């Protein structure tokens, strides 16, 4: 007894792999990633575009995936925290661990994606600029202090390696 629901086809490259699904037009991209593709590393915090928990990279740039409809991702590339995962921690993940840049871990994937894009942009940032770049993801546990430390050290490391890490 399911509703006859109009669906649209979404074909999207997520972390380098093609995914094709038929979804309701109203489906939020974050629900598509989490519940249709099973990539639960990206979280949901407000669905109002404020907290930034659902940050992923859309064609390489950070977006809030609660504010994008799944059909809008058709033909685009999405990068989530799962893209960083290998046997060893990614340098960015390692920086967060070493600097205690997380406590409950709920905002962490969003922070990582935001910082990853910053590293790729490769523009030097002072502390105030860095704070502004990170302001799109809220964290209730850390007071942000050790998150800055982690991101700062990661950016210094990537700058040293040509900004490609």
């Amino acid at each position: 007894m399911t509703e006859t629901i109009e669906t649209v086809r979404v074909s999207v490259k997520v972390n380098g792999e093609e995914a094709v699904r038929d979804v309701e037009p109203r489906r939020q991209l974050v629900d598509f990633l989490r519940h249709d593709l099973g990539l639960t590393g990206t979280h949901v915090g407000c669905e109002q575009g404020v907290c930034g928990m659902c940050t992923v990279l859309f064609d390489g740039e950070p977006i809030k995936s609660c504010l994008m409809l799944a059909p809008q991702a058709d033909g685009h590339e999405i990068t989530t925290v799962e893209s960083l995962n290998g046997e060893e921690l990614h340098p960015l993940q390692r920086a967060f661990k070493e600097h205690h840049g997380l406590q409950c871990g709920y905002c962490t994937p969003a922070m990582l994606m935001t910082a990853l894009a910053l590293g790729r942009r490769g523009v030097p940032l002072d502390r105030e600029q860095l704070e502004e770049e990170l302001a799109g993801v809220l964290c209730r546990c850390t007071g942000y202090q050790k998150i800055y430390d982690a991101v700062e050290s990661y950016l210094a490391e990537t700058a040293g390696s040509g900004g490609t890490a």
Partner: protein
Amino acid sequence: MKPAPFVYERAGSVEEALAMLQRYEGDARLLAGGQSLVPLLNMRLLMPSAVIDVNDVPGLDEIREEGDEVAIGALTRYSRIEWSPTLVSRLPLLTETVRYVGDRQVRTRGTLGGSLAHADPTGEMPLAAIALGATVVVQSQAGRRAVPAEEFFLGPYYTVLEPEEMVVEVRFPVRRTVSAIAEHARRHGDFAVISVAAVGEPNGDGGWKSVRVALGGVADTPILAVEASALLSGTSLEPDVVARAGEMALAAADPPTDVRASADYRRHLIPIYVRRTLELLQTRRSEGAR
């Protein structure tokens, strides 16, 4: 907090989008950056029958220099404006203003046209458009029309746009101006409690001409402080003139009380922020900034 059902339409061209708008007879919403629309959909504060996605419309996100104007496509994203070398040199107020808009994620997606069409009275892009004397180019199946920015906004979230019209481009005059913006907000990236933008052309003698002062958050729409602007033009922004301009701006305002600030406090801040913005203008001129 999930949107109510709607039909999803993807427009491949402006013409197609306009035809869709016509077809839904006012019950469709254009989806550009989605940074204002989608929260409203999620909260079911808006439940349109259709959402028309214009993100794939080609040619709507160009920044072009045309004579003494810069034309910016409606779909141009904030980050693009922030980082555009053309705009950094030709319209620095725009790039500076973007830094008050939301956060990085919002700037990746949010668009100039979407911001103007959304018409938040505290919106920074509408403010900058008014301060810079921009023209909003609006199109329907009947054709195009150009609306001066200061006539575009009619009220909170309410513009001259007819249901079958869309913003396609915003044209900014480019002159040898100096500009500045100042804002009071409750936290970083939040909606402005009040914001003031000012633009002026330096005169050879240390004076200023064609000064325009605009205010956000102090009325139903962002406003051009017409009398204050007229008073300031042709002066050297002497302190007493600036003070009088602040009072005139105050007289033109009718600020609201909301959870961010009371009307009283907004009124109190108006002359202060007008002064600060004009001081910043002076400083930038003396530092040789544009």
